[in-house]
């Protein structure tokens, strides 16, 4: 794949039209007003049938899992997983991400955490009953999800420093702890809460368990949105848990016997999140480049358009190089998914590291190219530069990506 095909371009144009009509004119309100992004995202999903597609896919998945589980129960070998039917094209997910990020990367953050991270973590490790209970409404955005691992004293060292606990209490558990920087935290209906099983043992040896919580449960408090540098269309908040009582039905997988002490489950989720960041970066870069080309042609100084100055040309050329590289990473990812090959953890990390850095660099250079206007909120590059920065921090900081890549390269 070296360019979008006709159908993908049609999808892109249709999504672009929707965004130009429903989101672009209201960016100010989404960024700085009190309107959360969820209603317009739901409208986007319904308009393009993304909700019914997700529902159908989920139904087929559950039917297969049932058949497989029945076969195992009868002592037979389960059927092989059906190949993804011809129609599935991951670009149907990537293109809306790219297009939304041209205008509002925050919306993608809110959407991705809800239907990506939160739904995926239940859908990969949950029981069939748990999947049916929570996943469909997350995939369609009818319910908003949050995925909570980070704590005030536990970020990059997510598992090591984690303080959040689950303690057994009869057949149930009592959950305690505090989470922070949680996307959708203030409004989430469904929360995946990651904590350690406290059996009085050494915290380093405790199992990592994930529970599904619903908003409004006794002892669960969701903070107001935190003020932050960018991604204002994505509400970020804190969660406080004080003796929240849950049954085993809310423990993902309904078992404490989690592989690798629960430390591997989250890793799969990280890999998926990282490839999504490349698509986000592509949106930011493409928009910044388009805006910059236009400005370079029209802004006149010293009697000529600034695009005539070589120092400006160098900026544009570097932006184009970044765009090409990130686009190629996205194309590669799409092809891999279609071929049924998954990215290794290190590859996903490399993809995220490069794309996040490229997005931040391009957006800041766009601000520079726009001069004083670039620093003004009226010009779109100001917001995109603030938004881009977080791509280097969340879903694992740049430094964490580098560690993951190096670890893989130096493996004996």
């Amino acid at each position, binding site marked *: 794949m070296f360019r979008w095909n006709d159908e993908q371009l*049609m*999808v892109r144009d249709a999504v672009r*039209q*929707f965004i130009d009509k429903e989101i672009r004119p209201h960016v100010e309100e989404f960024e700085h007003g009190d309107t959360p992004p969820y209603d317009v995202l739901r409208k986007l999903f319904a*308009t393009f*049938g*993304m909700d019914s*597609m997700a529902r159908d896919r989920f139904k087929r998945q559950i039917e297969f899992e049932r058949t497989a589980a029945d076969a195992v129960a009868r002592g037979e070998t389960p059927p092989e997983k059906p190949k993804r039917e011809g129609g599935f094209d991951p670009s149907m997910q990537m293109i809306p991400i790219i297009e939304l990020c041209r205008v509002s990367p925050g919306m993608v953050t809110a959407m991705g955490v809800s239907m990506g991270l939160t739904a995926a973590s239940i859908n990969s490790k949950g029981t069939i009953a748990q999947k049916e209970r929570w996943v469909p409404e997350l995939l369609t955005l009818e319910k908003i999800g949050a995925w909570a691992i980070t704590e005030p004293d536990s970020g990059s060292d997510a598992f090591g420093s984690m303080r959040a606990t689950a303690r057994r209490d009869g057949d149930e558990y009592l959950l305690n702890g505090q989470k922070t920087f949680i996307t959708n935290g203030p409004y989430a209906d469904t929360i995946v809460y990651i904590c350690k099983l406290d059996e009085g043992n050494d915290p380093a040896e405790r199992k990592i368990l994930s529970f599904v919580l619903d908003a409004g449960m006794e002892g669960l408090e969701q903070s107001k949105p935190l003020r932050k540098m960018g991604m204002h269309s994505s509400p970020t908040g804190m969660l406080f848990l004080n003796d929240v009582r849950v049954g085993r039905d809310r423990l993902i997988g309904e078992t404490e016997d989690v592989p690798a002490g629960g430390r591997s489950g989250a890793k799969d989720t990280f890999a998926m999140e990282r490839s999504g960041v490349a698509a986000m970066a592509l949106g930011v870069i493409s928009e910044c480049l388009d805006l910059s080309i236009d400005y370079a042609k029209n802004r006149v100084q010293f009697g000529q358009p600034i695009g005539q100055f070589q120092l400006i040309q160098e900026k544009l050329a570097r932006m184009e190089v970044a765009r090409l590289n990130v686009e190629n990473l996205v194309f590669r990812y799409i092809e891999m998914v279609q071929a049924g090959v998954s990215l290794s953890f290190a590859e996903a990390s490399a993809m995220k590291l490069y794309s996040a850095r490229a997005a931040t660099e391009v957006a800041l250079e766009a601000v520079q190219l726009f001069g004083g206007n670039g620093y003004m909120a009226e010009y779109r590059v100001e917001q995109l530069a603030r938004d881009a920065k977080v791509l280097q921090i969340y879903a694992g900081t740049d430094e964490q990506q580098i560690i993951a890549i190096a670890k893989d390269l130096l493996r004996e």
Partner: protein
Amino acid sequence: MNIVVCAKQIPDPAEPGELDPETKTLKRDGKLILDESDMYGVEMALQLADNAGGGEVTLVSMAPDNKVDGIRTGLAMGAAKAVLVSDPALAGTDALGTAKVLAAAVGKVEGADLVLTATESSDGYTGTVPEQLAELLGLPSVTFAKHIEIADGKVKVQRQTDAGYDEVECPLPCVVSVTAGVVEPRYPSFKGIMAAKSKPLDQLALADTGLEADQVGWAGGGQEIVGVEDAPEREAGEIIEDDGTGAEKIVAYLENLKLV
């Protein structure tokens, strides 16, 4: 309820158009998109078929070089199939020639209960094709529909007028031209976009329509574009300095033009 919708594919109005110096006509060699005017027809047809509890919406189009991008948009929105007539001999075809070709294409669609067009296209906008088409098909027609209902083998139409609208009825089958903005054309769903490519698309050449080359094209139109001139520059207006009698001078000026 089977409905045929005329779907004109035109050069994207957002791109700067260009004249072919040789033929002195608009260049149509780039990508063609579905004329926005016809999106209302497609939407209306989909809604009417839906309300009737089923039936197919078929698109018919005449366009150069077997261009299908605009038709694909209509198929992605939900039309079931399409008929496209394309032939080098059609270059230069005028509105009546177009109507002949479209009538032949409509004739290929079995069991059409209703034919919808826009009131005028966005690029040619002669606004004559719908009536010519009705005449050639031997069907009654209603123009400028802002609302359509189907009941008891008839269409009930609210027909836009300068003052408001008339309520008119017409037996099916018939040709109805619909005004812009009366329904909100849907976005094609992703599923619709992916399905569009595999929907039946009947591609016809002139010979398949039963028309002869001299009935269409430059020959059929009997017209020739002898020259293209730039519109004359606007002449500088008259500036009236207001020395206290400005209003009177303006009134006198307008009276002179018999405007007041």
